[in-house]
């Protein structure tokens, strides 16, 4: 699965990150590289710091907020 290590880092660090609920965290491997007010800022800094290496941008939510699509589409996850 893509970003497996980064997602594990997110879940491990979530208790400490919830002080920034609603902001966007940037994670590379097991490193939390920053917390930003917008996803755009996190993406920009992610590419500046890690170039074309994989990194995760995720909104910090103690209870994860799902997306809803009422049209018939199948969500896709890279194996």
């Amino acid at each position, binding site marked *: 699965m893509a970003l497996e290590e980064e997602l594990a880092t997110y879940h491990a660090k979530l208790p400490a990150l919830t002080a920034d609920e609603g902001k966007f965290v940037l994670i590379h491997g097991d490193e939390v590289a920053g917390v930003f007010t917008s996803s755009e800022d996190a993406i920009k800094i992610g590419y500046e710091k890690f170039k*074309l290496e994989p990194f995760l941008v995720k909104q910090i939510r103690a209870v994860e907020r799902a997306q809803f699509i009422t049209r018939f589409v199948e*969500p896709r996850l890279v194996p």
Partner: protein
Amino acid sequence: MGPDGPVVNAYIGVSLARFAALTDDGQEPPPPILIHALIDTGASCSCIEPSILEALHLTPIGQVPTYTPSTGSLPHPCDQYDISLFIPGATAATTPFQRPNLLVIAANKDSLHPQGIQGLIGRDVLEHCLLQYNGATGSFTLAY
């Protein structure tokens, strides 16, 4: 407005941030791809067919749980990608709509294409716009 509803032509490209990273790495960024996208107030986020994302050589940048009619009562994890969105103005003199670094999710292969579209413009984009749907005249306006 055609029989498929409020559909716009939109160009999907790599995000501005990725464009800069590719250029710095000496790579030529892939050109934007023209798609037909349905304006969908029932989508909380925008959604793009994976063949478009693959043609742009994108890899996931996030993951989010997603409910659709196909997922039933449990959300399914769905990859997120960073793209740029460019919707040309109605005329050459009209300012285009642009989001240079937008997070979208990927729909599974073949779920959008049979519907005659390659993407959904969701409320994450519409929150920056004024959408007027006039069913009586069969027209819509997307203002920004």
